[in-house]
């Protein structure tokens, strides 16, 4: 009990004092997750639009795989990526193992199915009359797709936020391919695991508080986006 209380006090002191080590870890975490999310969105949004707006062979299979991928266990991703990136692995020559690059790749793999699946659902949910409206106003097929995607923007925003929530809280994959090297690949989740192991609870608790705050912010952002997305009049009785 005493340890918890003392840990809390020291943790608050670390946060309030802008402890440089703490800040470094937070900054790296946000950077890794942010870049992973950017990459996952850049790849996932066009794919989501394609899956939602075009019919092509293997589309159903692809959707099934993406849905399954939403629940990918991070340690499995970590293991596979480790095997691929390790010195004797097929991409070993890139020397990415135990670098932030490897962590970004791992989180991209975890975020990609979430961003894609949830965005796909949002785009599919857009009223087909929107597509027709764009068409009648002279949209090319590409502009038509853009109009529909734009209509799904709040759902897509929610997808990206949900994916951020998952990858920023994940520990298995980044630990395995990042290695938890101080000042280089140590992020919030891996630092908590390590500091707890060492019996150094102050930093662990401080990071835990930050992580919880972050997930609270993610939830608030998600709710705000979802609220904005709802029609201002509630149920539309016409059009």
């Amino acid at each position: 009990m005493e340890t918890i209380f003392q840990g809390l006090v020291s943790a608050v002191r670390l946060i309030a004092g802008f402890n440089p080590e703490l800040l470094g870890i937070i900054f790296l975490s946000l950077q890794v997750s942010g870049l992973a999310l950017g990459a996952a969105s850049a790849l996932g949004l066009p794919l989501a639009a394609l899956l939602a707006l075009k019919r092509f062979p293997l589309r159903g299979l692809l959707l099934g795989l993406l849905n399954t991928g939403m629940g990918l266990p991070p340690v499995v991703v970590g293991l596979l990526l480790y095997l691929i990136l390790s010195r004797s692995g097929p991409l070993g020559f890139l020397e990415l193992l135990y670098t932030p690059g490897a962590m970004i790749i791992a989180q991209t793999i975890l975020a990609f199915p979430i961003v894609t699946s949830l965005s796909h659902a949002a785009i599919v949910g857009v009223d087909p009359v929107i597509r027709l409206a764009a068409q009648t106003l002279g949209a090319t097929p590409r502009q038509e797709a853009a109009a529909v995607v734009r209509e799904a923007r709040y759902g897509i925003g929610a997808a990206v936020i949900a994916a951020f929530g998952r990858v920023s809280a994940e520990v298995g994959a980044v630990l395995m391919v990042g290695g938890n090297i101080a000042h280089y690949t140590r992020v919030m989740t891996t630092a908590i695991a390590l500091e707890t192991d060492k019996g150094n609870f102050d930093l662990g608790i401080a990071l835990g508080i930050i992580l919880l705050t972050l997930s609270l912010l993610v939830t608030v952002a998600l709710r705000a986006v979802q609220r904005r997305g709802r029609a201002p009049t509630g149920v539309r009785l016409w059009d």
Partner: protein
Amino acid sequence: MTVQLHKIAKAYQGNRILADCSYTFAAGGAYILMGDNGSGKSTLFRLAALLEPPDQGEVRYLQGDLTLPPDITLKRRLTMVFPRVGVFSRSVSENVAYGLKIRGLPRDRVREQVARALEEVALSHKTHQPAATLSSGETMRLGLARALAVEPEVLFLDEPTTHIDRANTRLIEDCLLQTLRERALTLILITHDPAQAHRLGGRRLLLQEGRIVEVD
């Protein structure tokens, strides 16, 4: 631009809706299409406006003797408004600007044409309101403004005044009459209001047993 329906036919699940339907809409004319519920008027519009191909026959757009290819250039010269307008969840003005922006018009031209179109349908005071919050009648007027803004040469209107009060119906009709006078516009309009045909002074057509017949 002349719109020519040549022996078009359309069936849904074995039900023949249009059969051997031919008609020529002359450039610059106004046509009022009437017919019972379910007679195929809206279906005819979808085919004539190149949104759907007919099962048989052809829809031709003619410029003099030339048949125009049904590409995006041609499609941008015509537009249509259906009973469900399909407003984008953006502001009223952004809805009207859409057709102009995708044509790559410069910003000030867009602003100018949007303002004019909204004025024509008496929606200027709603310029910045989210389009999804408009009433049903206002929504239809927005649909009309959006269509007029792209300055179509052929305009298909499917029951544009069905949910509109009398004053706004007059306003829309005046707006259409003025557009007909000022621009080279071919107007084809579906209505269930016989008096509207007189007020608009167009050629009266009836869709009956899958074909267009002229009335009078």
